[in-house]
């Protein structure tokens, strides 16, 4: 048992490091906080992201696990993780490609024709074309298969009408993966068809969503008589759910371990600096017990991540266990932020870094974490996934099973 790289891994890490050192600068502690969720991206940020991706692609460091014929290097999962670990130590532009590379690419490669792969994959890899995911709808979130955006055949085209929501990066995307309903008389999972849509098509309108934290990471996307040529359909008509499952499996794998445990050191620092009844909060039993509880959970997520990396290193494929990190990390991050604001006393009610350095940091986390507990699978959906796929408990009893979609009660 050790945390060391194998010989091959260490050699690979060195190779990665030397390229990064020659092409980027190491981060420093004084860097401003990153916009990790892409909630405040400008046109310049998008351009910088595309340049960096182009540079990586030219040197063979883009989408490492993808096949060589599309520009990848057919790397192992652990090599891809090592790349990610090393790149995160450097100052690099925001990554606007996570949806494309994490979900769209693998889906196209699994279900697309050779022609489709050649058309889309290489430009996705180089960052020349940005992709987004058009899945959720106002009335179909956790119950994704209840989606209503319709696609109706018209000659060689399909005509799309409806609305998608929670679409990250739609405003600067060139392509989107889109699940539509093509047969409302079929049971809900059966009547779906999966397309790739040109985001520059007439009839598409993108509107940013104003989040509770003031950010704008997501959009609503409206479709009014948007035409998609049939050649942009992925897999067969009526097979959309099967294709969507490929995307969702890849989504879970790419969201991974939550990261809610960051900030323990900051929380301890805060506890040391504030007083309760004339004594440092960090010297008090109730505070220690609370922080210890956070530490145990944060480390639990971290070391479970190490166990997953070990499985990857041994060539195994991690399963739905990835839901664990997001579930535990999301709640943990929100609770830690709330507790930090408690420790700040009345100043916890401020969002003003001029009064105390921490105000704004914890407050921003507290406003951000509700989103993390919902996006990419709510806590409740994750508990269902864990209980059904990991623990072998029965699936939900479905009252809409086998019922034609148009007859399913919708509450509206």
């Amino acid at each position, binding site marked *: 048992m050790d945390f060391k790289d194998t010989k091959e891994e260490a050699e690979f890490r060195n190779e990665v490091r030397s390229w990064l050192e020659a092409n980027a600068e190491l981060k420093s502690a004084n860097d401003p906080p990153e916009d990790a969720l892409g909630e405040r991206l400008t046109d310049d940020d998008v351009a910088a992201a595309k340049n960096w991706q182009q540079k990586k692609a030219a040197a063979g460091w883009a989408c490492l696990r993808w096949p060589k014929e599309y520009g990848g290097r057919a790397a192992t999962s652990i090599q891809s993780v090592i790349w990610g670990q090393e790149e995160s130590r450097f100052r690099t532009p925001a990554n606007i490609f996570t949806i494309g590379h994490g979900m769209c690419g693998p889906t196209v490669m699994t279900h697309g024709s050779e022609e489709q792969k050649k058309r889309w994959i290489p430009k996705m890899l180089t960052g020349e074309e940005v992709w987004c995911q058009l899945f959720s709808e106002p009335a179909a979130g956790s119950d994704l298969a209840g989606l209503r955006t319709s696609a109706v055949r018209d000659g060689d085209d399909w005509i799309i009408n409806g609305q998608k929501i929670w679409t990250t990066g739609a405003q600067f995307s060139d392509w989107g993966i889109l699940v539509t309903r093509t047969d409302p008389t079929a049971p809900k999972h059966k009547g779906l068809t999966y397309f790739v849509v040109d985001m520059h098509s007439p009839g598409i309108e993108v509107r940013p969503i104003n989040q509770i934290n003031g950010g704008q990471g997501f959009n609503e996307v409206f479709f009014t008589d948007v035409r998609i040529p049939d050649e942009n359909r992925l897999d067969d008509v009526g097979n959309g759910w099967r294709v969507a499952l490929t995307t969702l499996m890849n989504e879970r794998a790419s969201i991974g371990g939550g990261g809610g445990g960051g900030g323990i050191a900051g929380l301890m620092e805060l506890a040391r600096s504030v007083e309760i009844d004339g004594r440092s909060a*960090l010297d008090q039993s109730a505070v220690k017990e609370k922080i210890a509880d956070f530490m145990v959970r944060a480390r639990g997520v971290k*070391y479970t991540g190490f166990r997953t990396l070990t499985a990857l290193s041994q060539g195994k494929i991690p399963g739905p266990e990835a839901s664990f990190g997001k579930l*535990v990390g999301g709640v943990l991050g929100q609770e830690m932020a709330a507790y930090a604001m408690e420790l700040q006393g009345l100043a916890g009610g401020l969002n003003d870094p001029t009064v105390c350095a921490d105000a704004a940091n914890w407050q921003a986390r507290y406003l951000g974490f509700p989103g993390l507990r919902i996006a990419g699978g709510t806590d409740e959906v994750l508990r269902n996934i864990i209980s059904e796929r990991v623990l072998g408990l029965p699936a939900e009893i479905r009252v809409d099973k086998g019922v034609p979609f148009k007859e399913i009660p919708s509450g509206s």
Partner: protein
Amino acid sequence: MNFDFTDDQKMLKETAAGFLKEHSPLELCRAVLESDQPFSTELWKKTAELGWQGTSIPEEYGGAGFGRLELAVMAEELGRALAPIPFSSSVYLATEALLIAGSEEQKKAYLPRLASGEAVGTFAFSEKVGQNGVTPTDTKLSGDTLSGVKLPVPDGDVADFAVVVASSDAGPTLAIVDLSGAGVTRTTLESFDPSRSMAKLEFADAAAEQLGEAGKGAEIAERVLNRAAVLLAFEQVGSASRAFEITRDYTLERFAFGRPIASFQAIKHKLADRWCDIEIARSNSYYGAWALEHDNDELPIAACLSRVGASEAFDAMSVDMIQLHGGVGFTWEFDCHMFYRRARLLSTVLGNTASWKHKLVDRAAAQEAA
């Protein structure tokens, strides 16, 4: 990255599991719990024949010479079986104390007997209700005699000798005491988990020999507790996993409202949460095992992470085990209460969960300051 046990260690674990399945079914734990028998001497002898007690004792002292990772995988299996034997007291505590602080002569005198299971050792530090730390202590070591009272002492009624935390002129000091000697009175106390026994030990000028440097008793005792905390965490993770599996199987078999109760989200989500707790505990315990095996600077913190994670996961699982069994979970005949009792007992034996949380934050703060 290799944050996993080796294939050999996994095979050892499977072998231990197979043996315990046959020789330590839950009926054995129940038999000890329902009788006046303090532990299963039969299981103790059988495990000793396999050399389990000497797993991590060097070969020169009669052990198998394995590391702590091998001991950890066996601890997990002993936990799964709720094995009713004084393994933790003798192996994780007394043996570790001798390995850390024993003189060559003491190691030669005690370790071979511990390795063979011929002798049972224990570790005595608590003296009164509410105590969690190894100090302060009113037990006095004067020269080679010991006086004072220790309570409760796990397996104190059956152990052949105890490593006792005492105070001497030099400060806290450890002593080894032969519990069958003159001046020692032992009283069996009623244990919350009668499958594990508890005792009061009274010493009146009992013969004792100093263990380790005088005045360093508290530091040595902390080191012993750190090591035991990791190993005991594996037992707790094992017990919690078994409780989880029994409960999951029960909810799959039990029907209500025309469906297995395991199909209700209220049940599924509770089980998912308990599974997460156990994963958190398991991963922290792996970290503890890594630190213990390398005996490195991370051990004091890793021990706390292991201990807190495992105690809380097993406690929570044992509580929900009864809850999810419904009425039958409250009956004597069902096994739930054996897990419920064991969970609570193990959460107390090395000091309560809160005390380990305090240590965790204090140690993390000290590490940051350094």
